[in-house]
C-alpha cells in the first residue's frame, strides 16, 4: 500500500471569476520529491500557498497524514517553506535566522545552539553564522533559508522556485545539493518550478500543470519519453510533431499516414483505432540524418541551418510541409545548409499522442 503523506481532494481556488486551480486531485507520497511544473499562471504556486496555509482553498480538502488541515493556520502546520526571494530576516544574523523556528517552539538554548550548528554545517555555512543576510551572496542566502526550513525537522518542505534568482552554474550545483539532502533526510518535498530541466534533474515525480489542471503526473522518464498531451510534449524539452492518422497495424507496430505524405512505423498504442487523428512525436536527439534514404521512417529534408552548440550540433531541417530539428553528435558530418538529405528514426523512438 502506498503511504500518502499529503492528499488534495477536489481543491479549487478562484480569484473572482478566475479559476486558478480547478478541482485538483493530487496524492503526494511520503518521502517523494514532487515537482509542480508549468508556465507562470498555471496555478502551481497557488497550490503551494494553499499547502503552506498562506491562502485558503475555495473548495476541496487538504489532508496531511490523513487529517484535514484546511483550518489549521500556517504556524501550526509544521511545514518548511523556501521562497524564491529567500525571505531571510534582515535584522537577524544567519544563526538567529536559523534559530528562529526553534525559538518559536520553545526549544532550550543549549539545544538550539547545537541544532543551529548542525543545520549550518549541513549547508556548509558554519563559518558565516554571525553575518547578516545582506552580507551574503544569493546562493549563500538561499542555503541559509534552506537550513532555516529544515532545522525544525518538518515532515514536508515546500519550495517556491527557490533557485530562480540564482545564476545558471550555482543553480545547477544547488539542484544537486538539494537532491542529495532530500535523499539523506527522507523528506517529502514539493518543489514549484517553471524550469523543465530543473524538474527533470531533481524529481521523483513531476506534475505538469496547465491552466489550473494537471496535464500529466509521472516520473521524469515517463514524462519525457511518453508525454500524455501535446502541451507536455512541447513544454518538456524540444520535440518534432508530425500530424497524421492511424492507417493500420503490422507486426506489433502502428502505421501512420502523414498529412505531408509518406508513412511512419511507430510504437503501437492499442487505444488508438485505425482512422484516428494522431500526432507522432520524435525527440531531436533520436533523429538520424543520412544521405541515402532509409528503409522505413525516412523523410526527405533539406538542411536550412546547422548550429554548433558545443556538446552537440543542432540541425534545422525543412521537410515536406513542416520543419524538423535534429541534434547530432558534432563529430558526425557537418551538414551544410542547402544539402538534400534524409531524416529517419526508429519506430520505438516515435511516441503517438492525440492532437
Amino acid at each position: 500500500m502506498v503511504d500518502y503523506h499529503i492528499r488534495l481532494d477536489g481543491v479549487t481556488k478562484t480569484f473572482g471569476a478566475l479559476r486558478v486551480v480547478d478541482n485538483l486531485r493530487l496524492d503526494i507520497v511520503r518521502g517523494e520529491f514532487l515537482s509542480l511544473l508549468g508556465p507562470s499562471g498555471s496555478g502551481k504556486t497557488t497550490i503551494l500557498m494553499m499547502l503552506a496555509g498562506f491562502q485558503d482553498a475555495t473548495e476541496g480538502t487538504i489532508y496531511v497524514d490523513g487529517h484535514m488541515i484546511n483550518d489549521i493556520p500556517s504556524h501550526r502546520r509544521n511545514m518548511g517553506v523556501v521562497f524564491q526571494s529567500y525571505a531571510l530576516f534582515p535584522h537577524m544574523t544567519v544563526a538567529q535566522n536559523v534559530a528562529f523556528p526553534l525559538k518559536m517552539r520553545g526549544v532550550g538554548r543549549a539545544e538550539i545552539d547545537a541544532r543551529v550548528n548542525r543545520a549550518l554545517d549541513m549547508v556548509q555555512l558554519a563559518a558565516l553564522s554571525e553575518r547578516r543576510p545582506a552580507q551574503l551572496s544569493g546562493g549563500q542566502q538561499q542555503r541559509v533559508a534552506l537550513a532555516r526550513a529544515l532545522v525544525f525537522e518538518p515532515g514536508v518542505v515546500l519550495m517556491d522556485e527557490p533557485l530562480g534568482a540564482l545564476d545558471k552554474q550555482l543553480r545547477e550545483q544547488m539542484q544537486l545539493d538539494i537532491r542529495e539532502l532530500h535523499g539523506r533526510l527522507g523528506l517529502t518535498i514539493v518543489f514549484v518550478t517553471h524550469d523543465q530541466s530543473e524538474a527533470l534533474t531533481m524529481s521523483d515525480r513531476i506534475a505538469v500543470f496547465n491552466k489550473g489542471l494537471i496535464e500529466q503526473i509521472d516520473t521524469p522518464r515517463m514524462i519525457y519519453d511518453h508525454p500524455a498531451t501535446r502541451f507536455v510534449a512541447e513544454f518538456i524539452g524540444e520535440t518534432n510533431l508530425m500530424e497524421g492518422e492511424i492507417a493500420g497495424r503490422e507486426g506489433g507496430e502502428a502505421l501512420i499516414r502523414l498529412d505531408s505524405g509518406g508513412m511512419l512505423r511507430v510504437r503501437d498504442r492499442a487505444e488508438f483505432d485505425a482512422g484516428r487523428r494522431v500526432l507522432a512525436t520524435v525527440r531531436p536527439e533520436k533523429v538520424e540524418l543520412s544521405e541515402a534514404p532509409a528503409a522505413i521512417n525516412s523523410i526527405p529534408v533539406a538542411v536550412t541551418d546547422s548550429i554548433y552548440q558545443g556538446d552537440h550540433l543542432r540541425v534545422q531541417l525543412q521537410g515536406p510541409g513542416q520543419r524538423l530539428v535534429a541534434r547530432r553528435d558534432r563529430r558526425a558530418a557537418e551538414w551544410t545548409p542547402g544539402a538534400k538529405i534524409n531524416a529517419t528514426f526508429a519506430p520505438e523512438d516515435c511516441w503517438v499522442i492525440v492532437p
Partner: protein
Amino acid sequence: MAGKLISAVFGVLAVCFLLLPLVVILPLAFTSSQFLIYPIPSFSLRWFEELFTTPVWRDSIVNSLIIGAGTTILATVLGVLAALGLREKLNFISAPLNTVFLLPMVVPAVVLGVGMQILYAKLGLSSSYAGIIIAHTVIAIPLVIVSVANSLQGMDTRLELAAASLGAGPAATLRHVTLPLAFPGIMTGAVLAFAVSLDEVVLNIFLAGPGQRTLARQMFATLRDSISPAIAAAAFLFIAGTVLLTLLVLLARRRFSGAR
C-alpha cells in the same frame, strides 16, 4: 559650468534663508543685556538662569516635557496600530479610513481648536493635561502613520509568511519581525510627534489653562508684553533639543541599517 555655479549660488542662498533667523537669535541667548538687541555688550548665562529659576519659565518647560512625552507615547502607539491596520486591504473601508486619519494634517489648527474647545467643555476636559495631550495627539498621529506606513511598505511581505511557516503566530510575528523592521519609521514618527507637540501654540491658546502653559505658549506670551532675551534662551533650548533628537534618530537608524 555656469549652470553648476548658478545652482551652487542658489543652494547657498537657500541655506542662508533657512539658517539666518537661527543665527540671528541664538547669540542673543547669551547676552548680558536687558534687551533683545545687538550689539551684545558682554556674554552671560543670566537668561538661562532666569529660565530655570523663574517659576513661570520653569513650569512651562516642565509642562512642555510632560505634554510632549504624553503625546509621543499616545500618538506613537495609536499611529503604529493604525498603520498596521491600514495595511490590510480589507474592504472598501480602508481607503476612506486612511484619508480620515490623515485629515488633521490639512485641517487648520484654529478650526480644530474651536471645535475641541466646545467638545472639551462638554466632556470636562478643558484646561487639563489629558485634554492637551489628546489634542496634540490628534495632530501628531498622521505624521506617525505616514512614517510607519512608509517603513512597512518597504518590507517584503514574504517575511511575515516565512515567520508563520516557521511557527510564529500573529503576535510573535508582530513582535519579532514586523515591529523590528518598522523600527526606523516608528522612531521617526515618535520624534515628529514630540516636535509637533513642543511647537504647538494655537491649540494651547484654545484649550490650555494657566496650569498647562507650555514653553512655546510662554514664549508667545512673553513676546507680546516684554521682549526679554529669555525668549532667545528658550529658543536656544528649543533648537538644541530638536538637533539632539534628530541626531538620536539618525544614530538609531544608522545602527539599524548597519545591522542589515
